[in-house]
């Protein structure tokens, strides 16, 4: 879950992700867009919007993939992963992803995306972006557990996923400013 009221757009999460995944400079799993300014002077507002894979529960990329390279791994939660050895680079997953979350790796020439730090989660750690965020704008938790901190915050702050109407059932929720 990402609290947009706290995000200052420092890019620390984005850079930490690049370091964690050993990504080249031009490849980012996490982008940050600046939204606004909106409203009318003097009542203007602007906020930052971190964007990455939403790990959709009804992921169009998984349905589309002709090789099964894009799949949902359930060992460490509901995580959409890409098996690079199976990817043929047809880019169908990139076309159907409404969140622009996928890129072609210049090195492996396969499609890559946010792994939700699956190896860190397996070790009992949190994701690198969450660990790096100094303002605690990011929070990782179990959406299936109604008593988890993240579930409680979603209820309390009325957090919503992005483009919910598309029916992809994203696992990333945003607390809007």
């Amino acid at each position, binding site marked *: 879950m990402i609290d947009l009221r706290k995000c200052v757009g420092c890019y620390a999460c984005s850079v930490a992700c690049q370091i964690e995944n050993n990504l080249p400079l031009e490849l980012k799993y996490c982008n940050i867009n600046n939204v606004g300014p909106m409203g009318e002077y003097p009542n203007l507002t602007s906020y*930052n919007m971190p964007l990455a894979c939403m790990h959709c529960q009804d992921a169009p990329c998984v349905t589309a993939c002709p090789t099964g390279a894009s799949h949902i791994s359930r060992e460490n939660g509901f995580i959409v992963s890409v098996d690079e050895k199976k990817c043929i680079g047809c880019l169908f997953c990139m076309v159907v992803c409404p969140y622009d979350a996928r890129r072609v790796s210049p090195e492996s020439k396969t499609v890559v995306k946010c792994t939700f730090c699956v190896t860190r989660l397996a070790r009992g750690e949190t994701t690198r972006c969450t660990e790096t965020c100094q303002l605690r704008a990011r929070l990782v938790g179990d959406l299936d557990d109604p008593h988890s901190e993240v579930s409680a915050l979603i209820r309390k702050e009325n957090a919503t996923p992005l483009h919910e109407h598309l029916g992809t059932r994203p696992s990333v929720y945003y607390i809007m400013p």
Partner: protein
Amino acid sequence: MEKTQNIWGNLATGYFFLAGTAAVIGLVVAVIDIAGGGELARAMAVMGGAGNDMFSTYLFNNFIALALAFALAGIGGVLLLAELTQKFRFPLVFTNPKSLMTIGAFALSGFMGLTFIYALFFLNIIPFDFTKLRFIVAVLLIISAVVLAAYPALEMAEARGRGFWRAGLVPLFFINALVCGSGLLMALGFRMAPFFFLAVLFNMLVLAGYLWSTELSGGSDSRRGVDLLLRGRLKTVFFGGAVLVGLILPAVIIWFSPVLAGVLAFVGGGCFRYAFMKAGVRLELPGERNVKYTDKEIESLAHSLEARWQEKAKTTGGN
């Protein structure tokens, strides 16, 4: 914000276009054959004389049409292969039958195989008189051709964030493939001007209806797609190529030169597919409008900055 759809490029567009056209050529040949064309030609041959010539012409024309369909589908397959970033892994495309792309790959392979076998009947390598076998191959060819002509639109409709592709592309793509396929058949000497003319008129109606309904009832991404075609950067290729060259001119010229009309319809069909592929822009993400630099540009700026720092470090001795 996507200015146009740039993930799938011209190679994928070319594949969809050629595969659709090839499918319709195979479809028309098979339908005419099993609807009685083959039996009529055979009956002519029995009469001898001029009937024999007509039978030979029938066999030759259909063989050439099937050879063209096979070649177009083959070229399409090569274009698809060229679009893959991991070309040598292409056999994996057959491993997930739940994916529409896998279904399409099976349809293409099946279509090419069946077209090859079917063409052998028209060369009399497999005797043309094997009516039942010819009928079975023709029916299977029709099924694979329908799937091959329809699946690209279904595949594109899977993109939930690209509203322009979501609603009713199947009939539009199918009717356009019908125009292109019958156009090429006319260019080969098939006499189907009335059918072609009706297909062109129907294509105009379906196209206008599609754009009108999408602009009226679609979301912001759908409307942006329509806007790109009618008023934006794709308007030249859409109005000039797809509408004028692909539909209006063939509808007028067909009564004077069917061959030219067929060729123009084929060229216009290519423009139509290109424009529709590019117009499928993704739903805008929050703040995407404010993104001023692409990742590549940022990389270039970062490298320039790094080089400048290195240079400065040298001149100041690292202080």
